[in-house]
């Protein structure tokens, strides 16, 4: 017995070491970049002193991008909620073939690389000057890309909470469709809307592949500004800007950890899906974000 457990313990130790190495690989550069953002001169190291100078410089140069990103994310999340929640509700309650086809269609933009979607948008709407140069051009791209995350998250909750029976009860008591939608459906799917909204917000704030193609000099979002700073500014400025980005996304990430949603809005869906595994209707492979890279 002991002859057998010794190699197993050794293997476990190796696994632990590898896991630690992976954590270090992911975390060390983040820590370095935070440090670089508050160091007077990164080339000379932290010994040169700490400063908030880079952060204030970044704020004065790029604060526009922060506000614009927030505005775009808010607009995106409002639109995806308004059009996505009713759609998710219908898809979850319909068993027809047409509903499954629509479901498949809506997920397609996640599977296509953002660059291609952006090129497609440009080739049709690139000529509409006012639309092209407004922030709504970017919002449209973000809406199409994030809609599946809202729909999936809401549809999963719909399917798990037996809305059919609840609604039938209400209908037999004389409630109209509007009454039922607002008092029963929306109330019951709230967790799905919250999870979906968090996923949409983080995806929109971090979106680069589409946005880089869609932006104009007047509509620079946070990731676009980051790419700019990385390419043309000194390392300390780029790092300070990264700190700004981390600060902005941190609240959403903490909220998601707290609610048990992963940034693709998949965890809630998964928990629910095991309960109704027999139906197996939501597309699987595409259910995790293919985008943020």
């Amino acid at each position: 017995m002991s002859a057998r457990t010794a190699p197993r313990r050794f293997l476990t130790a190796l696994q632990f070491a590898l896991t630690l190495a992976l954590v270090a690989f992911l975390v060390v550069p983040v820590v370095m970049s935070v440090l670089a953002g508050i160091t007077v001169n990164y080339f000379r190291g932290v010994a040169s002193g700490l400063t908030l100078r880079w952060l204030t410089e970044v704020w004065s140069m790029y604060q526009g991008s922060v506000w614009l990103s927030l505005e775009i994310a808010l607009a995106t999340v409002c639109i995806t909620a308004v059009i996505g929640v009713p759609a998710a509700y219908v898809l979850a309650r319909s068993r027809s073939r047409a509903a499954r086809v629509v479901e498949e269609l809506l997920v397609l933009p996640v599977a296509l690389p953002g660059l291609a979607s952006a090129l497609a948008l440009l080739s049709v709407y690139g000529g509409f000057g006012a639309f092209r140069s407004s922030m709504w051009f970017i919002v449209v791209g973000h809406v199409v890309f994030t809609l599946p995350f809202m729909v999936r998250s809401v549809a999963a909750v719909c399917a798990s909470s037996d809305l059919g029976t609840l609604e039938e009860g209400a209908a037999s008591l004389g409630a109209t469709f509007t009454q039922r939608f607002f008092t029963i459906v929306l109330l019951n799917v709230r967790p799905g809307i919250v999870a979906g909204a968090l996923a949409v917000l983080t995806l929109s704030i971090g979106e680069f592949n589409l946005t880089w193609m869609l932006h104009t000099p007047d509509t620079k979002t946070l990731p676009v500004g980051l790419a700019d700073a990385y390419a043309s500014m000194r390392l300390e400025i780029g790092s300070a800007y990264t700190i700004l980005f981390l600060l902005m996304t941190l609240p959403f990430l903490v909220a998601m950890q707290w609610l048990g949603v992963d940034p693709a809005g998949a965890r809630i869906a998964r928990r629910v899906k095991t309960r109704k595994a027999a139906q197996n209707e939501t597309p699987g492979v595409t259910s995790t974000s293919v985008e943020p890279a």
Partner: protein
Amino acid sequence: MHDLTFPLRTRIALIAPALAVFVAFWLLPLVALLQASAAPDGHASAFAAYGAVLTNQRYLHSLVSTIVLSLAVTVATLALSTVSGLFLARHSFPAKRLMVALLTFPLAFPGVVVGFMVIMLAGRQGLIGAISARLTGDKWVFAYSVGGLFVGYLYFSIPRVIVTVMAAATKLDASLEEAARSLGASPWRVFADVVLPALRPALIAAGAICFATAMGAFGTAFTLATDLEVLPMTIYTEFTLNANLATAASLSLILGFVTWAVLALARSMTGAAVAATA
């Protein structure tokens, strides 16, 4: 089927806005892109236009190197994440929650930020360069080469895959392994004959997503400005510098087709299991 509380008319009215947005801002543009790619300057047909793109030395090289790089990243990510995902799912220790949180934290990073992280590690003022300079006197700077791209793609793939592996590993039946072990199987045999087959659907699903993400990764390559031309960068250069919409369009559709095909293949290989784990 005929649900009295939910007539068809209402269903259509509720789904119409989402469908309208999808058709107007994705489907229609995609059809236009298809047309643009097939609008051949001097080619007899759309088929010839695509043939010309695929036989062009530079584009073909870019396509092949993107596929090879993505495959390499997928294999490396799957191997590393399986080892550590299994460990995290099997053992409980004080700092585990923190470790998992740290491992999933970079999920929300855009590609540009991942590129910058690679620069922090392996760039001109990077950590690896500083350490190697002290140890060997030689400063290792590989952020702006294929190595940098590989490291960057690993960086954004590992969190994604680890989450999937952990979820699948917690559902494994430990008694099967116990049985194999009590029958005298070595740790390696248990892993290869019991654990790996059980994880297969999850690994295929995670691998497909990892490959698709790597194929379309633009931000990381853009930040690193590497000497290796990956397909998204080629498309970008064709479109902006050469103003060549037709080529950019056909290259993006080829790229889209490859990603879509890999995802669809993984789905058909794993069936329902993918839906449960992805």
